[in-house]
Each structure stands twice: as C-alpha cells, then as structure tokens.
C-alpha cells in the first residue's frame, strides 16, 4: 500500500484560442502554449496530499508523449511528486494516441510499479474523451471511483464521493483501484520556488511503449476536423407566449 501513480497529460493551454489546421486534419499545435491538463493538476494535488497525510510513500507522475511531455512531468514534480516516468511516443504515433493505448500503458505501469492507487484527471480538455480512467480499471480488473469530488482512504479501501447527474454518490472500493478527479476534488497548489529547485534533482525515467509490451497502433482514424458552426444571431421576443409560439413554430417543442 505504498505507491500512487498519477497520469499527467500535456494539452493546449485552456486560455488559448484553438484553430483548425487548413487541411482539416487536426488543430494547430506548433508554437501554441501548452500546459498540464487542469484535471490532471487536480489529480496530482490529491496524490501529493495523500502522501503528505502519510497514507502513501511515493507518488510517481507518468506522461505519454514526445520530448516536451517531460515539461509536464517536471511541473508535477514541482508540485510534490517524487519521480517521473516519460513514455515516449512521437510523430504519427503521438497524433493517433488515444485513451485505449494510454490506458494499456498505465495498466502495464501500474502492475510494474506495484501501485496501490492510480489517480487520473476525469478527462482531458483537448479530446474530452473521459475514457482513460475507466479503460485502465477495466484492463487491470480493478475497481474504479470516477468523477471524484472527495477521496478518503479507510484502511485498504477507498471511499469516493462521486459527482453524478442526480447529485452525489458515495462508494467504497477495495485497493488497488483507479480514481478519476473531478473539478471540486481540490484546489491545486502553485509550484513553490523551492520545490521547483528540488524538482531539478528528481529523476524522470524514459521508456517506450514497446518496453512495456504495449502495442499502440490506433484502431481509430480521424477523417476530418472542423470548427463548430459560427453562432447565429438570436431573436428577441416580448412575452412568454411569443416564446412558446416561436419554439412550437421551429418544431423544438
């Protein structure tokens, strides 16, 4: 019961206005500001908090991607993770990397590192898939506590309060388990300057998916990427009756 694995993804920064490539094959990423996925930040914060409560001995930050993924791992180290693992995926492989391949990699690492807990962000803000956590748990045949707004370790079990459509659901799952972090789980800390200095000395191991016996061939092919249709002007109405009439007219109700 000593190790937590945290997944961190390098995504286009949330404040950047994303543009579609002229050939519609994807979005422009060259020269665009990237940062850690906000839900991954929340996951890192939770893992570090659990370690500070002395419930775990080590937090390992993992990222899959090209060389720049190490920047994201370093940020996780500066927030308090102990070491990092960079699973190198580049070029076309990286462009087609999705939740299924990443969850295979995390499953392999969770076994290799003998992790008791895998914490991931609930989804990434670039693809909004919301699949990696669930797939990782399934591949490992581990219980999962997704959309966590509260995580409490009770012996060898994890109590997770989940944010669901109807409200909040509390479940208790056995460890080892996978948890995915939702928005209200915590407020991520700022990397302090001394921790940034300490992060310099922390180790980041480098490996390839093949080293873990994982095949990252994609089963999906992106046909086309388009911008959402430009929002059209609305219509103002004077009364509620007018509104109902207009909605009936357009066939909405």
């Amino acid at each position: 019961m000593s190790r937590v694995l945290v997944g961190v993804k390098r995504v286009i920064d949330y404040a950047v206005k994303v543009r579609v490539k002229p050939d519609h094959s994807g979005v422009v990423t060259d020269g665009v500001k990237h940062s850690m996925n906000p839900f991954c930040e929340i996951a890192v914060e939770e893992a570090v908090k659990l370690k500070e409560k002395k419930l775990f001995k080590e937090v390992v930050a993992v990222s899959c991607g090209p060389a720049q993924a190490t920047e994201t791992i370093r940020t996780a180290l500066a927030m308090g993770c102990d070491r990092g693992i960079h699973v190198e995926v580049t070029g076309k492989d990286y462009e087609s990397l999705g939740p299924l391949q990443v969850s295979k990699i995390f499953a392999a690492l969770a076994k290799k590192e003998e992790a008791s807990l895998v914490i991931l962000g609930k989804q990434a803000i670039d693809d909004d898939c919301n699949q990696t956590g669930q797939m990782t748990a399934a591949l490992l045949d581990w219980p999962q506590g997704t959309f966590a707004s509260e995580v409490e370790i009770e012996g060898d079990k994890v109590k997770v309060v989940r944010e669901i459509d109807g409200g909040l659901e509390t479940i208790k799952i056995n460890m080892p388990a996978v948890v995915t972090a939702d928005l209200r789980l915590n407020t991520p800390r700022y990397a302090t300057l001394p921790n940034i200095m300490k992060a310099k000395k922390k180790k980041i191991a480098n490996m390839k998916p093949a080293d873990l016996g994982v095949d990252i061939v994609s089963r999906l092919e992106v046909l086309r990427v388009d911008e959402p249709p430009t929002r059209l002007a609305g219509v103002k109405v004077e009364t509620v009756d007018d509104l109902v009439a207009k909605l009936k007219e357009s066939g909405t109700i």
Partner: protein
Amino acid sequence: MAAFYKARKALARFVSGCKSFSSLAELPEMHQMMRQTCRDYADRELAPIAGKLDKEHLFPAQQVHELGSMGVMAVEVPEELGGAGMDYLAYALAVEEISRGCGSTGCVVSVNNSLYIGPILKFGTQEQKEQWITPFTTGEKVGCFALSEPGNGSDAGAASTSARQEGDEWVLNGTKAWITNSWDASAVVVFASTDKSLKHKGISAFLVPMPHPGLSLGKKEDKLGIRATSTANIILDDCRIPLGNMLGSPGAGFKIAMQTLDSGRIGIASQALGIAQAALDCAADYAHKRTAFGAPIGKLQAVQFKLADMAVAVESARLLTWKAAMLKDAKKPFTKEAAMAKLAASEAATFCSHQSIQVLGGMGYVTDMPAERHYRDARITEIYEGTSEIQRLVIAGQLLKENAP
C-alpha cells in the same frame, strides 16, 4: 604550448559568452517554470483584486503571505535561511510577473527582497541573518529601507539622521521620508550618521525592529499610484537599539546603501517591466475588440505603430534587465547595466501606460479598465530607488571611467 592554452582559454570565453547570449533568447527550464508559476499566481490571484487594492489603499497581506509560502518574498535567500535559493535572474522574472498582475504587490516583493533582505544578506553576520532574514522569508513579516530624508533624497550623502553610542546602545535621532512598506513592516534598515564631520563616510546602517520605542510613523502619504503600499515618514526620537544592531562596519553605511540600490534597481526595473507589459497587453487586447470606421482599431496604422513602439520599448528594457541580473549572478560588475535597465524600464513603463490610455481612448481614462491604474503605478518607477536623472549620472560615470585615456 602557451599559444595552445591561450587559444583554448579564448575559445572557452567565446563558448561561455555564447551560453549567456543564448540564455537571453531562451531561459533555462527552471526559470521558465518559476516564471510560469508566478504568472499563474498573478493572473488568478492578483489581477482580479488589483483594482480593489488600489481603490481602497489595501495592503495585500494575504497575498504577501501566499507569495511568502511560494518562496517569492526571499528568492535569493539560501534554503538554510528559509529562502528559495534561486538566482537574481529568477528574482527579476518573479517581480515582473507579480507586477504584471498588481504593481503595488510587485513593489512590496521588490522592497522586501532587494532593499531589506539584500543588504542583510550581503553585509550581515550569521546571527543577524538568522534573526533579521529568516522570519521575513515567509510573507508573515515584511521589511523596509530608510535612506531618504525630508531634506535629502538624491543627495544621500547629506543624511542628517544621527546615531550616538551610549553605553551598550545606539541612540538614533532624525526623520526618514518616503519609506515604502513602513506601516506594514516589522523591521527597517536605517542609515544614520555616527560622525557628521566625515560626511558620507560617517554614515552607518542599523537594524531596528518595528514597532519599537522611540520609533514612530508619520501619516500615510496619499499617493498617485502603487496605492496598496504604505509610504510614510519614520521618526526616530531617542530610539535605542543594542550595539549588535549595526549592520556592517562603522562608516560603511553609504557603501551599503549604494550597493543595495544597485541591485534594487534590477528589482524596480522588473516592476516597471511588469507594469509596461500589462499596459501593452491591455492595449493589444482592446485593439482587437474595439471597432471604429467599420473595423477593429488594430487595423489602423496609427494604432499599430503605437503597439509596435510599446513592444520594442518593453522588450529592449527586458533584455537590459536580464543582462544586468545575469552579470550580477556571474559576480561581474553590473552597476552600469543595472542603471541602464532601471532607466530604460521605467521610461518604457511610463511610455507604454501613456500610449495604452491613448489606444483605449475614453475607456482608458476611467477605472473600468486597468489602463489608468498602470499609468499611475508606472510614474513612481522613474523616481524611487534613484531618479532617472541619477541613473543617467551613474551610466555616464561608468562610461567615462571605461573610456578614460
């Protein structure tokens, strides 16, 4: 053989010169991370409240506390004393990003780091460092620096505040003016003369806790800008402190003050850069959104020329500031470069904030937009820690020394 070693030395110098050149173009990873964390903090925690802090003249105590726990209040202080253990370039980057969010908070950070902690770190005994620096690294306590007097600002050597020895105590008498952080500080570095006949060579530096019997504060000045900081006179009336509270050796005060201000200049240059950048960002954003004559005003050449001039002013001042910081970190002389940086950055701040209001037009004149606050905050950077005129004297002095026949 000698020629071989000479050539190798020259190559080494060339290579290390190249390293510092490329460092100006692309900061090392640690510095980039540090800059990002300060920028995130400034964007999320300072920018949203900066207007309120300014309007209500509120000292950002909670934010200073948070910045302290991030290590920003003591960037250069070694870890053993409670600081972040980073270099001066990191400090300059931190102050710029913080000032971009809130000019006043940037000033508090700069004064604590450069003017209060700076001289104690350089000239203090180990005991003084532990007593007077460590409690001031966490953001719980801030310090201040008292050199100017009602009778002399630029003419620092004419200090009339006196210190006489009485048994095992120093007794200080006099008035210091324009002291930033005074109403919020827990300690002050005071410059007083132990022997007026020695003129500036009779000035010594003293550490005085605040509050303290014999030390009182004048009224808070009602300033044009950086209104979240407190500025007031410090009045010393038979203020008694132990002999161990002298900082450095007797008569070294003027030298301590001048060297402290040399470094402090890089901090103020960084504060000015932050304000200038904020003004530029405000104008560039407005240029996209505001339409006139059927198109965004950013399409008009008049506006484009202003934005270009602002960008050049900021970027050139920034590179001067980084160079001064890197020279200091390399333990090379940096007096001229620091003065150039402060001069360039402060004039860039006033220029950019002036032009920013112009780009915003009427909106630049009202408090709904931050442009008018940048304009007011920028103005002080040309005055404190050495007026622009003094900077010119320093630069010319160094230049002429270098070119002496």
